């Protein structure tokens, strides 16, 4: 009997292709929106959370913890102040500290941020599930003027090993304000990580210091020019860095070290736990996130109401259909379930079409979103969470279908086999 009702319902629906099609479209767009928002939300979280792992503390000049996290790890925004080299040394020599990675920001190359660091970066930095950085080609820094490119930088700018690049001062591309006298050689390209690292150009701290040796306050000192070869002879010890990442010998000492850094007498410093700061970032965004989620739920509700309207408005013109079905032996319950099955089929088609829309959109937009926003949207099978959402949607559709179904039932009960024209 189920198959009879299914076949009758699907034939009746295809007979009303326009109204049914529009309803299915409305539902599919709502599914698309609902899952799309969910997808971006979870993938953005995952992508942020994947960017850094295995680092116990991030230390920078005293500011907000979210701000420190954003500029030191995600290359978003700028530091308000620096950390002096002396104090960096003092902290990294503490007995609890296993390793540190200095980070020096401020320059750029064709829109990509440049990060000054040491080879410890490639040794200790970890992302995702504690994965180490891997070189696709080449090696870490060997010379003062060596640069290691993130995967996307090399790909988008079409750079190869041993190409020479010129860094610009600041983050804008201002012509003339660059370090053309001291080009960098590409010594290596990192494998893809799916994190902001892919869009970063890494240079050695010494190189960073070298290109600024004849600069002061953001511009070249007039009449002073030190060539690339001369600069190698100089002591290239930076006086300050932007921030540094800390790995500890034991997790147990995290809070002790954090407290010590925060109470450091030499200069105002801030130490944060990346996970905690990330959580603060989520809390910051949770209102917007909730609003977006709420809107997409409302859109789903509206689309289901569209279906309800469509089913209700069709009932009157279908009284004849119901009377014929009754005359060939259909029970009242069959009439009821016929309408429920129709609602189910509409919602199911809406869900399937919505998924098709979602995956096509993901397929098309994935490279664009990754390039523009650095957000990697994984094209994968539905998560259990998403499946749960869809199942809830399907059963809500069925439950709503029961309303016009009951109306049809009542109608059929009073009509009997009398055919109303």
């Amino acid at each position: 009997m189920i198959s009879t009702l299914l076949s009758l319902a699907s034939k009746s629906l295809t007979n009303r292709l326009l109204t049914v099609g529009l309803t299915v479209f409305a539902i599919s767009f709502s599914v698309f929106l609902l899952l799309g928002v969910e997808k971006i939300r979870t993938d953005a979280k995952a992508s942020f959370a994947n960017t850094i792992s295995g680092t116990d503390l991030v230390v920078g000049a005293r500011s907000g913890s979210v701000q420190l996290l954003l500029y030191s790890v995600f290359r978003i925004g700028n530091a308000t102040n620096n950390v002096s080299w002396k104090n960096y040394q003092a902290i990294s020599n503490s007995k609890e500290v296993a390793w540190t990675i200095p980070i020096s920001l401020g320059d750029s190359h064709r829109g990509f941020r440049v990060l000054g660091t040491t080879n410890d970066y490639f040794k200790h930095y970890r992302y995702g599930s504690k994965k180490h950085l891997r070189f696709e080609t080449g090696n870490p820094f060997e010379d003062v003027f060596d640069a290691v490119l993130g995967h996307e930088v090399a790909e988008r700018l079409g750079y190869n090993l041993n190409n020479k690049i010129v860094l610009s001062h600041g983050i804008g591309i201002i012509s003339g304000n660059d370090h053309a006298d001291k080009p960098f050689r590409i010594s290596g390209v990192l494998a893809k990580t799916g994190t902001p690292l892919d869009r970063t150009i890494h240079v050695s701290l010494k190189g960073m210091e070298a290109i600024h040796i004849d600069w002061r306050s953001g511009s070249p000192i007039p009449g002073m020019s030190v060539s690339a070869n001369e600069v190698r002879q100089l002591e290239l010890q930076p006086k300050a860095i932007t921030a540094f990442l800390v790995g500890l010998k034991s997790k147990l000492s995290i809070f002790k070290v954090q407290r010590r850094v925060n109470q450091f007498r030499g200069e105002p410093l801030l130490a944060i736990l990346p996970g905690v700061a990330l959580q603060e970032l989520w809390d910051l965004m949770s209102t917007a996130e909730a609003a977006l989620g709420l809107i997409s739920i409302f859109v789903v509700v509206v689309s289901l109401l569209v279906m309800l309207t469509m089913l209700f408005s069709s009932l009157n013109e279908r009284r004849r259909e119901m009377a014929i079905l009754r005359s060939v032996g259909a029970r009242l319950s069959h009439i009821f379930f016929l309408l429920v099955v129709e609602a189910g089929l509409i919602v199911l088609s809406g869900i399937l079409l919505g998924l098709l829309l979602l995956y096509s959109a993901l397929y098309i937009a994935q490279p664009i979103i990754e390039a523009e926003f650095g957000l990697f949207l994984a094209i994968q099978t539905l998560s259990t969470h998403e499946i749960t959402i869809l199942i809830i949607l399907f059963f809500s559709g069925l439950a709503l279908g029961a309303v016009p179904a009951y109306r049809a039932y009542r109608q059929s009960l009073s009509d009997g086999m009398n055919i109303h024209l």
Partner: protein
Amino acid sequence: MINLSNITFRWKPDDSFALDVAEFSVATGECVFISGPSGSGKSTLLNLLGGVIQTQHGKIVIGETDISDLSAPERDLYRADHMGLLFQMFNLMPFLSILDNVTLPCRFSSKRKQRAVKKSGSIEAEAHRLLRRMELDTEEIGRRSVNLLSTGQQQRVAAARALLGSPDFVIADEPTSALDADTKFAFLDLLFEEIKTVGSTLVFVSHDNELGSQFDRTISLREINRAAKV
């Protein structure tokens, strides 16, 4: 056979009786013409016979079953198994093909299905046979939409459906009223012919008394329905 005794029915508790019949019988294999203008309780009688509504009083025995004793789903199944129904017009589901329309009763009754298969080997074969008997070229129109048929053709398709699976009773409600004089009698001839070969009992309701002469017996609904308003 069909036997109604002392039945009364009203649609709503406050209404007056729509039907009040002391005694009415149709013998097995008989073709009975019931003449009744609108308002004579015609649709009430058909709905009662079909088991769609239930009498508030009295007995309706159809075959060996007192359908006034059955529950609503039981009456629905009884109708599906034993009755072929035929209406004035718009008998067909607009979104089903002609063949699907004819085989529709088999979807609700396994008995009808068995009898159709027994007769012609398969439901489709029996549908084809009946459509041919109704002088419709099934090869040409079988898969076509019913909307393309003339009214006369539609009524013949509906008759084929009512006869599919050899039901014991065929109940017709003015099936010829939308047809012109020539096709009317041709349609009746086809219907009679097939009903006689199957051995079904026919109850045919119409206000077109001209047709009455073709039947075994003619009854005026006004005479048997004490609640008739006309």
